[in-house]
């Protein structure tokens, strides 16, 4: 066979595989969503609470540092520029709007994908290669209810909450730089921030965070379940879960922004 034919065939096979995997992931997500009604039922309560706790606590330290410094960097960069025109009192709105609209949900999602998402992929991947998933299936315990649903609930709930936390810390970081480096008082900073940042900005941001939470769970669980080849495979699944989550978060984030701001 000639090279172009062969490579076309290979591309075709890859596209089919991609469609197949996506379908698989979608089915998993739908089924887990249906099971959400049992999140606090007798059988799943414990796991759901554990996952909520793990998701909330695991990444708090990193989120704190990243959010504070992002706010500070944003304030410093835009503040120095604004200062050249004597407009430094506007850093309040500059920082608040960009953090609430985009940076807050986006950074939170990246951190959660890298910490919580990768841990999910590694755990479910290990369970897959050590036959634990097969054991659940034989015991007629649906992994989508038993494992995916509690993680879905945890990420869909915690992502918006953590995003609010990121927003607050980011804006505070900006305020610190404003007061210490740019001579903008805290009250002037906050006045300006609340004047320009709207409720719509906040709600669209939180909606994004919620969607990102679902994306991270779906990608990580799916990659975990698809793991083959033992420990090496677990490493691969973990890495892939982070990379794929990042890509989908970027694309979907753009689409949501377009949807609400055009």
């Amino acid at each position: 066979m000639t090279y172009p034919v062969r490579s076309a065939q290979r591309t075709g096979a890859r596209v089919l595989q991609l469609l197949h995997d996506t379908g698989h992931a979608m089915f998993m997500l739908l089924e887990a969503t249906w099971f959400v009604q049992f999140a606090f039922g007798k059988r799943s309560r414990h796991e759901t609470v554990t996952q909520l706790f793990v998701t909330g606590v695991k990444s708090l330290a990193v989120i704190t540092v990243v959010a504070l410094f992002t706010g500070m960097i944003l304030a410093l960069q835009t503040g120095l520029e604004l200062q050249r025109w004597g407009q430094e009192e506007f850093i309040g709105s500059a920082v608040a709007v960009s953090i609430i609209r985009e940076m807050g949900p986006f950074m939170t999602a990246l951190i959660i994908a890298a910490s919580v998402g990768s841990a999910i992929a590694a755990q479910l991947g290990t369970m897959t290669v050590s036959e634990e998933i097969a054991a659940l299936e034989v015991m007629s315990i649906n992994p989508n209810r038993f494992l995916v649903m509690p993680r879905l609930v945890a990420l869909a709930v915690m992502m918006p909450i953590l995003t609010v936390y990121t927003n607050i810390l980011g804006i505070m970081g900006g305020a610190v730089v404003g007061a210490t480096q740019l001579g903008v008082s805290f009250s002037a900073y906050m006045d300006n921030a609340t004047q320009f940042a709207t409720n719509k900005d906040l709600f669209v941001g939180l909606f994004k965070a919620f969607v990102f939470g679902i994306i991270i769970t779906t990608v990580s669980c799916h990659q975990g379940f698809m793991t083959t080849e033992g420990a090496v495979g677990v490493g691969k699944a973990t890495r892939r879960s982070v990379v794929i989550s990042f890509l989908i978060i970027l694309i979907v984030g753009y689409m949501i922004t377009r949807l609400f701001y055009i």
Partner: protein
Amino acid sequence: MIKFDHVTKRLGRKTVLDDVNFEVGEGETFVIVGLSGAGKSVTLKHMIRLMSPDSGTITIDGEAITDLGRRDLSRVREKFGVLFQSAALLQWMNVRDNVALPLREHTKAAEEEIIERVTAKLALLGLDDAWDKFPSDISGGMRKRVGLARAVIMEPKIVLYDEPTSGLDPVTSRRIDDLIVNTREQLGITSVVVTHDLHSALAVGSRIMMLHQGRIVENAPPEDFIRSKNETVQSFLESQYITKKGKWEEFRHE
């Protein structure tokens, strides 16, 4: 009880099961032996439809399982308890919760009753002291026994054991053999045991089947298996220092 009818399975480029036919009767202890990669685990996985054949049918209790829907599959799987090759315990649950899992998921039993049943089963397997340990903190032999406790806690009709004695010392291995025999005698269940340990096979089996490169090369009661004329079987027997002249009864222990 379990029937394989012209079952063929290809995985990747390899034909792992090649036109396999056999039947396991009720109350039997059916042993599958063979070299690594012969297709033993794949055969077990077909019985509970963790894998489906490319062609052929598998019948459990007179019911073909190849095309069952989710509900029916669940009902068929309820008949089985499975001890996986790696025990497959959930790492974040302690021994007691692992064994209690099927009860908590599938029965409405009260917590006290569940604890009582699990504790009794653990005691039977000599695991009284280990109930609050986690799988990563106990030895391989203990993990296997916990896996066995979990496999039989729902009192299944059929128990599948994938290499119950591999990686264990000889003393523990013989204890597991006894457990298999006892479990069958006490509960009157059908067992399928996969192993490369012929001593174990001769000790527990009412029938021994040897798989080689996806084909059945021998399927006979232990007394005939040990005298098999098949070359593959003979070299397998010799590799474990078992000769035709040996008495298979010697491997049974009381």
